[in-house]
């Protein structure tokens, strides 16, 4: 079943055409890899999907409903979560609180209701209390950060920050998770850990779209791969097909597509 699809997506920044007439379809339960040289428009595509800016043309459909033009928070409330290329965790909050913030139910309550509930409900019944703590610890265990839960997020090494961001995104109970270069800046051991985490997430029934430059990671975990170059989709298929695809090889400056990193 097609969970998320985009048709004829175009995004222009001033004179620059970042995304040009791109179609894509994300099948439920799959891991779709998104690759392409720097500046190909991958992050722009994710930003379009998650509502950080509207497309100049084209539509994005989630379960058949158009979501292009909705704001980022609304899109998250519908079940799509994401991480960022440069990690955007909450530095001065503890690791635990980072995840707890994601656990807050904002799907059914507008801001003023949350404020009202905060005054009226007991701490116990809020994610900032015991209940939330247990659920948050579960998520942290999933990414292997439970031991650091009382640390300030600021103090974490970079690789752990990326995992924290994933845990926080998962806290919003998404159906789709968009990962933007989750392995960037990680050493080989950390990359392997990351692969394991992502596979686990997929195993739990969450559909994944992953942008990556680290070929080892993307080839390993993707069911299908989509390739962007100068804003256009130039190829789509299984990892093996992409590996051998002439156009893809060309785009990566000849012959690099199969090499390490």
């Amino acid at each position, binding site marked *: 079943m097609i969970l998320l699809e985009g048709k004829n997506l175009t995004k222009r920044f001033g004179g620059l055409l970042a995304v040009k007439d791109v179609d894509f379809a994300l099948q439920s339960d799959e891991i779709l890899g998104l690759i392409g040289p720097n500046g190909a428009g991958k992050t722009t595509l994710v930003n379009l999907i998650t509502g950080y800016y509207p497309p100049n043309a084209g539509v994005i459909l989630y379960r058949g409903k158009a979501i292009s033009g909705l704001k980022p928070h609304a899109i*998250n409330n519908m079940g799509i979560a994401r991480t960022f290329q440069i990690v*955007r965790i909450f530095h001065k*909050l503890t690791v635990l609180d980072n995840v707890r*913030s*994601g656990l807050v139910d*904002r799907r059914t309550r507008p*801001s003023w209701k949350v*404020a009202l509930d905060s*005054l009226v409900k007991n701490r116990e019944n809020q994610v900032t209390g015991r209940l939330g703590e247990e659920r948050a610890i579960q998520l942290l265990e999933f990414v292997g950060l439970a031991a650091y839960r009382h640390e300030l997020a600021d103090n974490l090494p970079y690789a752990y920050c990326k995992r924290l961001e994933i845990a926080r995104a998962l806290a919003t109970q998404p159906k789709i998770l968009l990962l933007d270069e989750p392995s960037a800046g990680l050493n080989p051991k950390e990359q392997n850990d990351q692969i394991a985490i992502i596979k686990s997430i997929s195993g739990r029934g969450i559909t994944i779209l992953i942008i990556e430059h680290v070929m080892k990671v993307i080839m390993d975990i993707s069911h299908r791969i989509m390739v962007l170059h100068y804003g256009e989709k130039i190829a789509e298929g299984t990892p093996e097909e992409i590996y051998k695809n002439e156009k893809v090889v060309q785009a990566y400056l000849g012959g690099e597509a199969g090499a390490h990193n």
Partner: protein
Amino acid sequence: MNRKPLKSLFIILGILIVLALPLIIRDRYFQHLLVLSGIFILLTSSWNLLAGYSGLLNLGHAAFFGIGGYSSALLALKLNLSPWVGLPLGGAIASLFGILLGIPSFRLTGPYLAITTIGFCEILRLVAMNWVSLTRGSLGLYGIPPLTPLNFSTNFSIKFVSEQNAYYVILIFVSLTLILLNRLVHSEFGISLKSIREDELGSQSIGIDTSRYKLTVFMISAFLAGFAGSFYAHYVRLISPEMMGLSETFNILTMVMVGGLGTLFGPVVGAILLTFLSEGLRFLEDFVKIDIRFVIYGGLLMATILFMRNGIVGLFKEVAKPKESNGR
């Protein structure tokens, strides 16, 4: 384990002292300072909600103070409205203006938001100065009715003209406010605000409608400041447009920074400390014949930022922190 009963004892002792204070020290001026401190605690706590917990640099906070004061005063003077009703009403009207200052905060940060909020505040101050038919301009409003007495029987009624009685009223409001703010900042709403403060885009990605949350917190903060303004109007019974001046905001800001930004008690400590310090310096001025109060204020603010960034409360927490366990 034997810390807890000791701590409870201190708390009970503290509460008793706070309750008995104006009965122990009967000097009226001292009591007046207590009332002023209470008013400032409302102002500092509400500003801290915006700047400390939500990361919103509002330098027009005095506008809420003034609007609350003028609204309640005018309603009492012109429509004979009971000041007790004027208190929450002044807060509510200030809250509406909170929307006005809150909207720019959707897209603006840092110095841009700062200047915009100063701008709004200055414009409102000029309105108060120049709309003479309504506000009597720079002469201000005088003869504002005090909080109406509570009549219990033909013989027994409590009036609220004296500093002592005003102290108990403000004490109730301050306590209520602190209890509510404590709940708020440790709640789901509070954690959402802190998230917005830390990273706005990241917050949006986890479902936080940052604009709405900012609007909500601006309205809450404005209500508290407006309430404080109304109380101030019915207490000192004379207000002028200077209530909405830039120095008023800077006063509040200095109190919060010195006390400790982003903490619950920082604004309380800062408000009390600087109110008393300011008056203490005034006595020094009689001695030394020059007004160095604000020079010291400025120096204090700078020293805090440079050396004691988290304020007095922050310093306290540093000192009280348990020894580091062996690494992470």
